[in-house]
């Protein structure tokens, strides 16, 4: 992943003078480095080791991978997660940016502040809490929008939780908790664009729509990419949501709906840690490839700016 480094180390000569911090640098990072090794680097290496060996520690090449690929639950779990990721990413990128642009446009400041705050509140209900709330929202017997559920043809909880709906449901829940915070961030990023630029655009005859497309959105591109990366990374990890829904729906939802759940079943119900590691590694590589693409295409992270 050397591509992440923006500029290759130019030969600077020997510049290790004591004037740049001496030994304090290594000392200051030591605590973090220990944690990084223990909970970042070592687990990754351990996962790689497990994925390429068997229970007796013998090297097995890609056998573990072909074995989990052939599992009848593997394909569906990945289809589920990809469907979820597509809906979730489109929702979060399109809607948060659009809403932020509107809120930053010609609108009473008080109204804009209030809306941003109200949109932001569900962010406090991340994780288990959000699933529990949405269990009720999706249960036609208690839901405040049961008329809507019924109009859509869902009379019972079981009908709402039909397998084909789950990707959309999880994307909605994730959007409900996550979008508000990102709207606030995007709004802040838009706020940083200098008024002169916007004024110039207006003088040139650009309406709000063209200003947004040609000036505002390109100028906050880095934030959009940043959001997409974090949303993608979080999305591939989906575990709590389907796991809880599985508990709450009396097994109507598959216990291996997401790849992470499948890895969990491998590890803790079958004691097959090698297979579990292989699934984890597939997720990890997938996440890194997408993030790497986004990063290199957008020049988001500049490791060193000098």
């Amino acid at each position, binding site marked *: *992943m*050397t591509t992440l480094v923006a500029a290759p180390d130019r030969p600077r000569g020997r510049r*290790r003078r004591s004037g740049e*911090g001496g*030994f*304090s*640098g290594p000392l*200051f*990072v030591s605590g*973090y480095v220990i*944690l*990084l090794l*223990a*909970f*970042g*680097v*070592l*687990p990754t290496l*351990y*996962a790689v080791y*497990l994925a390429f060996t068997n229970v007796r520690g013998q090297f097995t090449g890609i056998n573990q991978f072909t074995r989990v690929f052939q599992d009848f639950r593997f394909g569906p779990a990945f289809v589920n997660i990809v469907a979820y990721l597509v809906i979730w990413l489109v929702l979060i990128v399109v809607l948060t940016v659009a809403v932020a642009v*509107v809120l930053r446009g010609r609108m009473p400041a008080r109204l804009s502040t209030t*809306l941003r705050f*109200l*949109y932001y*509140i*569900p*962010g406090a*209900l*991340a*994780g*288990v*809490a959000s699933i*529990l*709330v949405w269990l*009720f*929202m999706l249960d036609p017997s*208690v839901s*405040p929008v049961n008329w809507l559920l019924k109009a859509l043809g869902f009379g019972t909880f079981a009908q709402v939780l039909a397998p084909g709906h789950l990707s959309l449901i999880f994307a909605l829940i994730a959007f409900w908790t996550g979008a508000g915070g990102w709207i606030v*961030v995007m709004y*802040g*990023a838009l706020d*940083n664009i200098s008024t002169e630029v916007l004024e110039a655009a207006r003088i040139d005859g650009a309406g709000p729509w063209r200003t947004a497309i040609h000036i505002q959105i390109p100028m906050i591109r880095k934030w959009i990419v940043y959001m997409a990366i974090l949303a993608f*990374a979080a999305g591939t*990890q989906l575990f709590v949501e389907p796991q*809880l829904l599985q*508990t709450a*729906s*009396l097994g109507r939802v598959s216990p291996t709906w997401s790849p*992470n759940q499948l890895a969990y079943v491998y*590890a*803790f119900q079958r004691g097959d840690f090698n297979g579990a*590691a292989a699934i*984890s590694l597939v*997720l*990890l590589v997938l*996440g890194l490839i997408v*993030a790497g693409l986004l990063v290199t295409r957008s020049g988001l992270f500049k*490791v*060193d700016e000098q």
Partner: protein
Amino acid sequence: MTRRAVTFLVVGLVLALLLVFFVLPALWLLLAPTKTASELVSDSPLAFGSFGNVVRAWQHLTGFENGVLFTWLRNSAVYSIGALILTLVTSIPAGYALALTKFRGRKLLLTVTLIVMIMPSAALVLPIFLELNLAGLVGTVWSIILPFSFYPFGVYLVYIYFATSLPRDLLSAARLDGATEWQIFARVGLPLAKPVVGLVAFFSFVGNWNNFFLPYLVLPGSDQFPIQVGLNQLLSSTPSFNPVAGAGLDITSPELALAVIIAILPVLVLFLFSQRTLVSGMLAGSTKE
């Protein structure tokens, strides 16, 4: 003129729909404990029940397994705050050193940090579990606090903040004055870092408070659960969702809703008080392109 009116209407409608989407579930949640389980079904969804029902739900909830709810909340506090302290102690100096000192391996460390940051961390939970198992830590407080306190995102935030907002010349001047590196960090760096410290603390605390996967795997007993895993346990004891296991227990939908409100209270309070600070801190690192 009419086209403008149409645009105005459409935009207004979308904003209003989003408002309902974001607020309605939260509003329903707040009202749910004021009703009994049967009133939840029969009454209008946004009707207010009575405070007596809230008290009754509270009694049922605190009576669940002899008040295990309080144990869960205390556990969550211990895990989140313990990890928060370790995160701050390790990530603030690390981000500072990465931004403002030079040492061998600095670039490598930055690159690894970026990679780990964008890695889906849940993929590492299983190997971390095995590692903790090898170290004999599974089931102890440390099996949660130590992995929680590893927070590369925090290091990166601090790094960006110092790299963009603290001029190197200021440090050189301090060095010429004969200050030690520690003094420079403590007297020049730290006071300037207040916004980013708040930011890291907020994200770390909220993330840890809401974390489910690792404690769910690592902790064997109910009395060690953080509140998030506790909620899962409550859910499986609720007859509304689990008629077999939940039969005969007092934990029904209103109790569950009340438990959710209690569980999110600390995070909600943080949210309400920190919105403004958060955004300014978040964008502090980005203003300089």
